[in-house]
């Protein structure tokens, strides 16, 4: 039996109403949502993959800060009450009257992408995206002591695999310094400065110092993790 247009519209309306009711009845898990949001941010590393041609360089220069500026404006509007906090799922109570973690996170990623060499930026971003929610989950289930040990090991692993083509001494040293910085950055809490920022920037700054010392002393420094693609030759 062929339905009339009116019947089809009615069906669609009913379906939309049902879906809305279904969504409204959900007790969505903010805890896991926050973790997934963290892990998702690892995708931003795709930034390094496009070819280094002029117009893409321009995009790489302007798109990330545009996103961060948008997040900052949104957050200012939220704090001023222009945009309701109701639209920000997963915000914690202590973020109600403070800048949200996601802004700190975005600013940290932007600084790393722009100002740090790739072998420093990539593991630091992974620490914030993967190690941070893992440490949060460990803290949630076990004790603080477990957070330090397992967090250090995970971060150590990240730094080690992306510094593997440096000299072995530098690889071990960088992994220890980076993992230590990441764990301290995650565990030291300040009201005004979020751990999502500290877990990225603290190890990055420590490793940048090491990078300068290494290059001054003539050590073998690691090469880039992601090699930009090549622009295809269009006929």
């Amino acid at each position, binding site marked *: 039996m062929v339905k009339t247009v009116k019947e089809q519209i009615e069906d669609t309306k009913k379906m939309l109403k049902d879906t*809305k009711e*279904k*969504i*409204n*009845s*959900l*007790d*969505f*898990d*903010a*805890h*896991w*949502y926050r*973790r*997934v*949001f*963290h*892990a*998702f941010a*690892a*995708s931003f*590393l*795709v930034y390094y*993959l496009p070819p280094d041609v002029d117009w893409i360089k321009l995009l790489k220069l302007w798109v990330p800060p545009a996103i961060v500026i948008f997040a900052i404006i949104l957050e200012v509007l939220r704090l001023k009450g222009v945009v*309701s*906090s*109701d*639209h*920000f*799922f*997963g*915000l*914690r*109570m*202590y*973020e*109600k009257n403070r800048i949200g973690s996601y802004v700190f996170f975005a600013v940290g990623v932007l600084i790393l992408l722009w100002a740090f060499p790739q072998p420093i930026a*990539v593991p630091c971003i*992974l620490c914030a*995206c*993967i190690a941070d*929610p*893992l440490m949060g989950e460990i803290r*949630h289930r076990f004790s603080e002591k477990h957070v330090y040990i397992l967090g250090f090991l995970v971060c150590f692993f*990240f730094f080690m*695999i*992306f510094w*593997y*083509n440096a000299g072995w001494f530098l690889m071990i040293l960088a992994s220890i310094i980076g993992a230590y910085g990441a764990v301290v950055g995650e565990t030291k809490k300040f009201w005004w400065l979020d751990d999502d920022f500290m877990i990225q920037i603290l190890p990055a700054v420590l490793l940048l110092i090491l990078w300068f010392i290494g290059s001054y002393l003539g050590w073998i420094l690691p*090469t880039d*993790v*992601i*090699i930009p*693609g090549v622009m295809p030759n269009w006929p």
Partner: protein
Amino acid sequence: MNNNMDYLKKENNTKKLIRTELLYTPLLVIFPFVVGLILIFDWYTRGFIENRIGFESELILGLIIIIGNLVFDIPFLKSLIKQLTKKNKK
């Protein structure tokens, strides 16, 4: 649960929050996998097939992104499906 783990959703705004944020779920789940696969594909085409060194880190990074996301996506989707089926039964 201490205060650090309390969410703003406890202020009776859950429904509005869900409507806004549920829309992002497909992006949050699918995009990292796409990026991970692109990195692995890049290693395969430029590194493995052309037998060039220096692309191994792209393979590892791709795997880390995929596995790292899977670790959190599975419990997240489980909790979502659980809630959906629970409400459907009622």
